């Protein structure tokens, strides 16, 4: 079978973060991890081309996935494999979107990434095979990927036994006992020694390691970003007030202050009276401009990014984070101030 392999700029050997902005391109044959994958696949399947895109470009450009898919189809792909992206968010998002587009177009496709990769939900109905957390697990991951490709090539459906990542859905049900009675029951069983019992799995929260401090703030470009739902008055782009599904951007070039009546917060999660009397207090443009004028910071980025945090799903918020990081990197921003409510 003719296989096309997708990798990011790093695994294609085109460079690290400095090359993350490059657009889609095709390379002949195998590149980087594709070489080991080709060995593992043996004679039956051939990697005919490698398609590549920079992580920032792929994560911040909606047209990247269809463009890459077109390149794969032009190279005669009968099957598309993306990754492994391990735990990398932008790369994972790019792989997930590409296999989702391929699957929707009827081209068999699979991606490989760590089950906690924030991009994973964007794969939709396309299969994702589990990868390790880092590239140290390259060989065992590619062994699984090769086996999964062999099975997928026969037209079979991949299952958990193939290393496919299953989505765990929490499905609501009406049960006999009300929650208060179940709570009493659970307390008594825990007191009796079943310490680990719980209805909802606990823990597993991300701990984000802070980035290194900005080297020289006086020459850095700083962005303002917020989940406080600050938008032009009247909310012309209809940002949700709760349970966000998207984020927006607004230019602030030449704007010194977010004036009441011109800007407002449409967040449904707190009383917005004080925020709307002075929107600078939830998105501190006035203070940032003062720092810019004094030269304390180099330059303020010419737009801000905004969504609403109220009731927004964690998975959605993680995806916004990946997309924002790609956007800001592409724009040459070194640091961002995120205001939350």
């Amino acid at each position, binding site marked *: 079978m003719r296989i096309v392999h997708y990798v990011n700029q790093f695994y294609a050997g085109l460079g690290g973060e400095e090359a993350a902005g490059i657009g889609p391109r095709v390379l002949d044959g195998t590149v980087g991890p594709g070489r080991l994958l080709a060995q593992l696949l043996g004679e039956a399947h051939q990697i005919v081309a490698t398609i590549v895109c920079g992580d920032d470009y792929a994560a911040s450009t909606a047209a990247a996935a269809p463009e890459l898919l077109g390149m794969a189809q032009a190279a005669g792909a009968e099957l598309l494999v993306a990754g492994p992206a391990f735990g990398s968010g932008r790369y994972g998002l790019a792989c997930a979107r590409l296999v*989702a587009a391929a699957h929707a177009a009827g081209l068999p496709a699979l991606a490989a990434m760590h089950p906690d990769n924030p991009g994973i*939900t964007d*794969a*939709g*109905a*396309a*299969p994702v095979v589990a990868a390790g957390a880092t590239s140290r697990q390259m060989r065992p991951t590619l062994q699984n990927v090769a086996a999964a490709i062999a099975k997928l090539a026969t037209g079979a*459906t*991949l*299952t*958990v036994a193939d290393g*496919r990542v*299953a*989505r*765990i*859905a*929490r*499905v*609501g*049900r*009406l*049960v*006999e*006992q*009300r*929650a*208060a*009675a*179940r*709570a*009493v029951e*659970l*307390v*008594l069983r*825990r*007191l009796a020694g079943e310490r680990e*019992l*719980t*209805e*909802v*799995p*606990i*823990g*597993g*929260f991300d701990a984000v390691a802070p980035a290194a401090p900005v080297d020289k703030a006086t020459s850095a470009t700083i962005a303002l970003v917020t989940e406080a739902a600050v938008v032009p008055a009247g909310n012309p782009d209809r940002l949700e007030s709760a*349970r966000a599904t998207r984020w927006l951007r607004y230019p602030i070039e030449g704007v010194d202050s977010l004036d009441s009546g011109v800007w407002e917060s449409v967040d*449904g*999660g707190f*009383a917005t009276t004080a925020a709307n009397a002075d929107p600078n207090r939830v998105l501190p443009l006035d203070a940032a401009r003062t720092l810019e004028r004094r030269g304390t910071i180099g330059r303020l980025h010419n737009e801000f990014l905004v969504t609403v945090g*109220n*009731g927004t*799903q*964690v*998975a*959605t918020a993680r995806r916004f984070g990946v997309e924002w990081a790609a956007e800001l990197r592409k724009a040459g921003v070194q640091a961002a101030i995120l205001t939350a409510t």
Partner: protein
Amino acid sequence: MSALRRIIHDVRSVELGAVTRYEQHQLVVGRDQVQALFAEPALASVRVHTAVPGDRVRIIAPLDVVEPRSKGPGGGVFPGWIAPVNRKRGGDTHVLRGAAVLAAGQLPRNQEGLIDMSGPAAERSPFGRTHNVVIEFDRADDASWQEAEVALRRGLLRLAVHLADAAVDAAPDAIEELAPPHRAGTPTGGLPRVGVITNLQTQGAFKDVFVYGRSMAGGLPTLFDPAEIEDGAVVSGQYGHPALRNPTYLHQNHPVIAELRARDGQDLGFAGVVLCPEPVQQADKELVSTHAAWLCRAAGFDAAIVTKEGAGNADNDLMLKVDALEADGLTAVALYAELSGADGTGPPLVAGPRRGAVVSTGNYDQRVKLPAVERAFGGTRLRIADAEAIAAVEVPTAAILCALSPLGAGRLTCRSEQQLGGVA
């Protein structure tokens, strides 16, 4: 703390009539008497309706819900509102079980919810199963919304007492003796001492809960007499997240207290109730949580069930308390609603404890299809669905009043299921 007897009168039908009366499980609500009870300068008019189980009726934008209760001619329920706080505690309280009074209509910061009296929403709300007296209202032109809300609350509390007054001479269906909790240091025959911590929302106008008529904002947790909760010492003025709301009715019938009492002396000793504010600042949350854990230890608890009201902010209060209790060597279980998205695949908790355990009250985002109804009260449109009030709609569970009850009144939970592939 005080002993209380609940004198139970089962209500099996409710209708409107000339004069309020109760006989043979039948409650008649006097129309003119209701008007007199809501005669408040801040209210231009009120209309009274009934909505009973099985009716094809929807109640839009429900506000507070109250259970009719009375201590007889001397009064005494709802201290701090329509009874003095300094009165004799305990004694007999008449309860119209199966009846509820509630207001419905738009109010600032009331997140719009609904109650259906039949269909899937009726199964998910405790108020789809009660015989309801529904009050619609119009605010007086010269009154503020805050004044109208206070007037409405006073009217609801007066109506609740007025209806229960009609039953005080009727033969009871049951008499329930409620013993006070076991004091610290008294023997429980080796049974573990289990109590409950109930967080009350304290976020200002329309998002506040009253204890003896006062907000707990700025205060510290307190050990509280459960007999006083039965008698309406905790009254809600909180209109956030409909499914995650604790109306006065559910404080009067606190589900965790009821379940602890049901097993008291069998496999646990009911150790008591701690009420806490839900402050909005992190340092205050930490103080309240640490102090609540200390109070539970001082009151001799071995374990505590922790409840909340609202989401987000409130989830942090819950998490901090469970962690503080477990760090102090107490066993803790929290009641949380999950926020795992319409398809249930998102992470279920936005904030969770590091140890302890969590009981699920359902998934906030799971969607429920509701059939059309014949009649609606409280409004002519359901704004969250952008539909006629009586239309067939699909809503998140979050919109159904008390469907995810943080006090544990509901029968919803969630279970993990493995699914391959995406969701269309």
